[in-house]
């Protein structure tokens, strides 16, 4: 059985290696993927949205509906984890790994690192227009800082950093923020997620700039809330 599966995998590897020779070289401008819409995006992104980071414009503006779907998938995955792990609540005791470690060095380092990581996370969210980053990365960084607090300060010691009961509602709030920004332009006769009809009284390119920022905040809230919720479910069984 093992030999058979290794043989099948090896055969697939050979096919893939043979096919890889026919692919365009890395980063060449005349690759098929760079021939159609990619050129439009590169040429118009800054003019349309006043945002230098084309990746952010792609994710937050041109393919915003796609990103809304992704955020909903994240939210649904968090809810599925909760539903699966709720019956595992057990006897209600805090597992030993989530007791406060009486370790001075780890605790001091964590307390020093938490604000630095969280400020950097906010920078990643709000500077996503100009540098790599955005809602997903910033939200994941925020969640990572809270998980660090959970591990080092213990379940009870880290509730002041971020309470367990807030995690799932925050995930929902993020999706709602995103969807609300999408719905507002409908009232002005526009399309779903058409940011340049947001009633803020600015030039269309600046409105799209601020629309991207708004949905990035929604994405960050959802990713942060759901990641913390999954961690708490796995480590405490949804208590």
């Amino acid at each position, binding site marked *: 059985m093992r030999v058979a599966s290794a043989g099948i995998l090896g055969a697939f590897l050979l096919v893939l290696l043979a096919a890889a020779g026919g692919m365009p070289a*890395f*980063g060449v401008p005349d690759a098929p993927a760079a021939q159609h819409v990619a050129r439009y995006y590169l040429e118009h992104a800054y003019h349309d949205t006043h945002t230098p980071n084309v*990746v952010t414009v792609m994710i937050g503006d041109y393919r915003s509906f796609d990103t809304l779907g992704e955020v909903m998938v994240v939210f649904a995955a968090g809810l599925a984890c909760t539903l699966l792990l709720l019956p595992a609540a057990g006897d209600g005791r805090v*597992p*030993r*790994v989530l007791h406060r470690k009486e370790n001075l060095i780890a605790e001091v380092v964590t307390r020093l690192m938490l604000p630095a990581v969280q400020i950097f996370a906010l920078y*990643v969210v709000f500077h996503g227009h100009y540098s*790599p*980053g*955005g809602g*997903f*990365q910033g939200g*994941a*960084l925020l*969640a*990572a800082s809270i*998980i660090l607090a959970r*591990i080092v300060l213990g379940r009870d010691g880290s509730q002041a950093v971020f309470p367990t009961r807030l995690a799932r509602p925050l995930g929902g709030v993020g999706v709602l923020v995103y969807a609300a920004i999408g719905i507002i332009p409908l009232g002005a006769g526009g399309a779903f997620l058409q940011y340049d009809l947001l009633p803020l009284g600015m030039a269309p390119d600046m409105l799209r700039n601020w629309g991207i920022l708004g949905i990035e905040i929604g994405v960050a809230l959802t990713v942060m809330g759901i*990641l913390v919720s*999954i*961690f708490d479910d*796995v*480590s405490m*069984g949804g208590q």
Partner: protein
Amino acid sequence: MIEIVIAGLFVFAIVIALVALEIRDLLAATIALSTFSFTAALLYVVMDAVDVGFNEAVLGAGVTGAIMIMAVARTQRRSRD
């Protein structure tokens, strides 16, 4: 020069992925998987996909490892298959 580094990263990623699959100790497997994610993040950065590499480093190498270690801590450390 950079091609040698990239090839080395690819080989290391494949080796560490096989280690994560084959090792019996689930805690060690989790750490091997985090190492694989970090290697993947480095590969993304080398290929100019910094946004994706950023996500892979935070989620794959950081948060996922922590969640899986919690699951191992609440179940058992040895794989039985």
